């Protein structure tokens, strides 16, 4: 492990912060160039991420690029970073989405900037938090970054958001806090148990996973109140709030609708993945028996999310809310896939995380394009925009197809793999979830039809400007990824294969004793 020790991961995490410090030193008169700085920071990180990608050894299932520095030795806490096949795609997703999102949400009118320095600073801080959460291999460090993500998001929604922004941002913050504080109690218990069992304190994932947590599966009550059951539920609650799983999803539509476009893009593309990543990294491998015991319940919630999210999206007249609910629906698949305890479906869940990240980022950007031009999000106000903005129509079409999981797009890869795997384990669940694909097509095509075609009711729509070069570039890169993953999934996810198969084998071995 120590042989390939390197500081590359630290560079990935702290590069945005370094640019943030640089930004603080710049005077206000360069205000209109602050976005450029953010873009440069994003590109720099992308370079680091590409280096990580090319040096990553796909044949190894354990953590690579490990960096370990004692931090609070008395409590066994260390600054421990590592990347494996599960976190690698998510880091890449973050690295790719960041410059795209900054390009795609570039303000049209640079004279109307509002507290630009603080905005860019928050965007940079958000990135540090996201990379940190994906790369931490120490549970304290994980929690540290997990919480740090909240603060920039809180300001992004609260300062630059819509009319109801304060309500939305408080709801977002408190919802997440409830979950994460209960998770913190569970973390304390795990560290205590490790110290009790092994004598020395440690907080690393690898060490904590070695503790045997008691589990009793005689009845529901006993399962819930056994040690492992409580730990599983505490962690899982924190993660599913972030995913979000129905019925803990109500913060999401508010946060998305009120957030500025850039905030929405990060929220949908990366922040939601923190939740599913947590499930995959902590909830399932550390408490496998409890996870297996509650798997039907979790899949049930997942399926409900798929169908409920789709129906809610169908009923929305607010375009942004529609996309937000579609996130609830798509994230439901990931829950189903993970808790089916099937090797194929677990892999599919990871694919779906990436694919949803790409397509939802694009969809929120489209909402942003339209809002920037027409200052409305109401579906009734749109119509026949395809005629005046054909490039936007094409971009939106590609994203819609990805969202409805058309074969040849990335959406198909994720959802099909999940459904295929789940069908082997739980055919009934897969059937209902499969219906979700149909509902998904209904609302997505409805949105497309209402926005791009339909009667021209609003005179403003005649003058909609088509995509700018920057926006076109952002859309183009997304389209490349959509079709690239759709046609050649192996070349994008190949590096995760070993990790995923070892991960699921170990997981399934632990719970299925036949």
């Amino acid at each position, binding site marked *: 492990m120590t042989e390939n020790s390197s500081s590359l991961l630290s560079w990935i995490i702290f590069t945005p912060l370094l640019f943030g410090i640089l930004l603080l030193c710049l005077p206000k008169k360069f205000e209109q160039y602050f976005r450029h700085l953010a873009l440069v920071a994003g590109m720099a990180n992308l370079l680091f991420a590409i280096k990580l990608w090319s040096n990553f050894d796909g044949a190894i299932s354990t953590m690579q690029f490990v960096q370990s520095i004692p931090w609070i030795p008395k*409590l066994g806490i260390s600054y421990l970073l590592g990347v494996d096949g599960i976190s690698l795609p998510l880091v890449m997703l973050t690295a790719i989405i960041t410059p795209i999102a900054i390009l795609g949400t570039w303000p049209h009118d640079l004279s109307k900037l509002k507290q630009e320095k603080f905005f860019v600073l928050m965007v940079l801080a958000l990135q540090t938090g996201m990379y940190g959460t994906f790369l931490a291999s120490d549970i304290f460090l994980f929690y540290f970054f997990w*919480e740090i993500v909240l603060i920039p998001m809180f300001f992004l929604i609260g300062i630059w958001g819509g009319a109801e922004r*304060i309500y939305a*941002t408080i709801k977002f913050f408190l919802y997440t806090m409830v979950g994460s*504080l209960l998770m913190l*109690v569970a973390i*304390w218990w795990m560290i205590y148990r490790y110290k*009790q069992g092994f004598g020395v304190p440690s907080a690393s994932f690898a060490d904590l996973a070695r503790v045997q947590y008691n589990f009793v599966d005689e009845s529901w009550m006993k399962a819930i109140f056994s040690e492992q059951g409580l730990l599983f539920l505490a962690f899982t609650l924190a993660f599913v709030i972030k995913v979000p799983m129905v019925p803990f999803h109500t913060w999401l539509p508010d946060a998305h609708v009120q957030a500025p476009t850039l905030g929405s893009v990060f929220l949908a593309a990366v922040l939601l993945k923190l939740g599913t990543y947590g499930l995959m990294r902590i909830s399932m491998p550390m408490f496998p028996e409890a996870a297996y015991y509650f798997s039907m319940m979790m899949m049930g919630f997942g399926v409900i999310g798929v169908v409920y999210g789709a129906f809610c999206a169908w009923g929305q007249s607010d375009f942004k809310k529609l996309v937000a609910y579609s996130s609830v629906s798509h994230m439901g698949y990931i829950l189903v896939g993970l808790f089916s305890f099937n090797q194929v479906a677990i892999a599919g869940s990871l694919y779906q995380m990436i694919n949803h990240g790409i397509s939802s980022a694009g969809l929120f950007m489209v909402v942003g394009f339209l809002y920037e031009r027409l200052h409305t999000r109401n579906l009734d106000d749109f119509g026949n925009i395809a005629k005046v903005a054909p490039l936007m129509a094409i971009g939106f079409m590609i994203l819609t197809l990805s969202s409805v999981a058309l074969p040849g797009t990335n959406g198909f890869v994720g959802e099909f793999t999940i459904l295929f795997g789940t069908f082997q384990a739980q055919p009934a669940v897969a059937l209902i979830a499969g219906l979700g694909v149909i509902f998904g097509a209904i609302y997505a095509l409805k949105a497309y039809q209402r926005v791009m075609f339909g009667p021209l009711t609003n005179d403003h729509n005649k003058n909609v400007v088509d995509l700018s070069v920057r926006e076109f570039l952002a859309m183009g890169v997304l389209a490349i990824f959509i079709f690239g993953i759709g046609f050649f999934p192996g070349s994008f996810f190949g590096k995760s294969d070993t990790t995923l198969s070892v991960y699921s084998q170990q997981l399934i071995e632990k719970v299925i004793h036949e």
Partner: protein
Amino acid sequence: MNSAISLVEIFPLPSLSLAEMISLWPLIILSITAVVAIVAGASKVVARGRMLAMIISLFGVAVSTTITYISLSYDPVNLLNGTLFFDSTSRLLSLVVHLCTILAILVNFGYDEKEELLAEVYGLLPIALAGMIFMIATNHLLFMFVSLEIMSLAIYVMVAMRRTFKFSAEAGLKYFILGGLASAFLLYGSALVYGATGSFNMEVISQSFVRGISPLFYVGLLFVLTGLFFKVGAFPFHSWIPDVYQGATTSITGFMGAAVKLTAFMALTKVCLNMIFVPSFLEVDIFKFVIGTIAAATIVYGNFVALKQNELKRMLAYSTIAHTGYLLLGLLSLNGTPTNAQFIMIYLVLYAFSNIGIFALIVMLERKGERDIVIEELGGFWLKHPLMAISMTIFLLSMAGIPLTSGFIGKYLLFAAAVSSQQVALVVLAVLASVVSVYYYLRVIIAMFMKEAPKGQAMLTASKWAGCGITVLVSIFITIQMGIFPII
């Protein structure tokens, strides 16, 4: 020659070693400083007596701080048969209260003129500090009472000193009367404990359980606890806190929330360690239940009432009650593992600096006269005073226990200790209640960053006093530094 011998026979002076001397010198210096500062402040010789008093006081406390710092490397000292015990822990804590006092003196600078404070405040602060050092060092119930009085009497006066504010005198009187009652409880309890065990020395008392103990002891212990619960502001004895925090001289409020709380809580910790959580004490469960209940009630009460406050100082007063609750919960972790006391200490120290920092900011903001700062008035503050708004945010996030700040580390250590002594249910209650606390801390941040200034009102203007600025900077440094690279 003969006379010299006879003198020693009449007054058998103990010969003090260097370590003993160096432990006592701060107390001597502080007492002299107090007297000189008061005289200097009252004298008409110099035109600006107040300024002179401040400089004398600052100098005296600084010298005393230096000596305390030097004394850190000396051996533990046991004076007067264990009445005063200076070891590295008590010296470190005494260093922290020294720092708090220096910061409090600095905060007063500038504010004193605006609020027409008397120069005596610079004499009273060293007196209170001397009382605190006593209290931190003593293991003796009677000395604890005396040092508590030395500290409190100075504080009562300082609370009532803000003469431009009509609630100030009321706050001082209220604090005085209720504080007197609490002290009486403490004294009476000590007497009963003495009756039951035959000693005031807690070390001796902790060993007397082996022989069996008379029921008188329980009553005495409850009285002692009551007195101390009052001083730290635990739930049924909290009623003075909001009024005193609001009415008091703001520069002193920060000092109270930091240093007084730290000292009183250390006394409480000592009582718990030596008189409750002793292996041979059989009735420990009853007292665990009492402390647990009070902790839970304090946490819930403090957090939920703070939710409804509109005035900044009052909100912070209720939030300090909630923090007392967390600390009481931490007391339960002493059961069986006395080393957990260090986590209570760390929490107190870290909280002290956030508290001093935030009150220094409020001092800079406050208007002369009747009204207090209402949270809504902070609207648009971020655009007008970005640095102060960010400082305030850091302190609030620290109090809310968000990572990157010392408050998170403090809470982490305290609750982790409580979890490892099986107090999971109470910890869950505490963290859920602290979600509530996040809400009211966020309210201030939201007002500063996300709301417009209220219409038809003059915006808050900050006085830029160097003393407050230094205090805020020092507090921020400690808050961030301990939040990222904690030294424990």
